């Protein structure tokens, strides 16, 4: 398989306007991935499937990731005048990266016998703009997994033929795999409660439980 940089430049030539980014990976596997913008996600995926060199004809896995709002800290060296003398001082700057939801596709090629290529798409935010293009028209295998992402993370896939909840029931309101999901408080007695469970146990058994 070509390197990700080559694939990126070829996509940019083939799909005009597509914004592609290579997401680094610091883990031992070092498996990097392609981040595609929402507007061109479908066209890029179609090109990846149909390009004679790449021919990614098999989506083996589709999953979702929830990235909540994160506070990033970075140390910046700033020149300041302290007591009349110019000095370099390290300052800690805090920035808030707004959260988003992400869909991750693992693509393989049966024909060319290569892969995986990791394709990512991100929503604009986690609240009201949670739409992504569905890739089910390209890979039928994505249908149930996109439904599962819709169910558990709340990403709405445009163009999905049958977008319904799949694991939870239809009237269910929440998305349980999101980081800020609050589960119903149906605590039951535990013989050795600890940490969070101990806190909940104290609420349910205020007097009787001494630990």
């Amino acid at each position, binding site marked *: 398989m070509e390197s990700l940089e080559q694939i990126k430049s070829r996509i940019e030539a083939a799909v005009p306007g597509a914004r592609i980014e290579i997401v680094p990976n610091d883990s031992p596997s070092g498996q990097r991935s392609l981040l595609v913008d929402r507007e061109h996600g479908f066209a890029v995926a179609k090109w990846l499937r149909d390009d004679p060199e790449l021919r990614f004809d098999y989506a083996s896995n589709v999953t979702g990731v929830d990235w909540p709002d994160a506070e990033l800290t970075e140390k910046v060296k700033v020149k300041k005048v302290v007591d009349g003398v110019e000095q370099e001082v390290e300052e800690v700057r805090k920035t808030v990266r707004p959260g988003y939801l992400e869909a991750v596709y693992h693509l393989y090629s049966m024909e060319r016998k290569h892969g995986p290529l990791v394709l990512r798409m991100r929503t604009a935010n986690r609240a009201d703009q949670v739409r992504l293009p569905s890739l089910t028209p390209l890979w039928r295998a994505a249908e149930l997994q996109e439904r599962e992402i819709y169910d558990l993370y709340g990403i709405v896939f445009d163009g999905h033929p049958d977008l319904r909840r799949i*694991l*939870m*029931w*239809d*009237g*269910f*309101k*929440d998305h*349980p795999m999101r980081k800020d*999901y609050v*589960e*119903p408080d*149906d605590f*039951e*007695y535990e013989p050795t409660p600890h940490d969070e*469970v101990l806190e909940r146990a104290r609420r*349910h*058994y205020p007097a*009787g*439980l*001494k630990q």
Partner: protein
Amino acid sequence: MDEGLRSELQKQGVFVTTLEELYNWGRKNSIWPLGFGLACCAIEMMAASMARWDLARFGAEVFRPSPRQADLMIVAGTVTKKMAPQVVRLYNQMSEPKYVIAMGACAISGGPFKQGYNVLKGIDRYIPVDVHIPGCPPRPEALIHAFMTLQEKIDAQQLKGEGRPRHLDPDAPSEFPIPEYGEHDLEPPKNPEVWRPAVVVR
């Protein structure tokens, strides 16, 4: 009847019994379970009914495909909140007298999924359970032990009086309310007439 007199009569070739004993003897040796499995415990339940453990020795090999013909519900496996109303509905459709064995850690308490959002923390929140067997999954021997425990329980039941079983008491409920799917959880999350939270005494 006096045990000594009975054994004395038996030595003389006279067999004496009571209607209650005969009735319970017949019932306890023909418990037909509902062919109903939810997760990996069901595999052990199948093994228990096969040749190696041979549940047929206890008169319980006839796994019925319909709740109308079954006496015993073996809740074998994880009861998810999505499945719980269907389990209660199946139990309601069984005819009296009916019994429940909660098989495995999940069915008795939620097991390894107890802290999860999608698993019911024990089927005894909605229906009365006669025998609980722990294990993940319990071995077929444990299921056979549960059967024998249930047989002892049936054998000890009285036909009249305060201790009579539910099916002989016209005031006792035979059906239990089926929970509804709510927006965040099952409604109600438990049936307070069947299940009360444990009281911690330390």
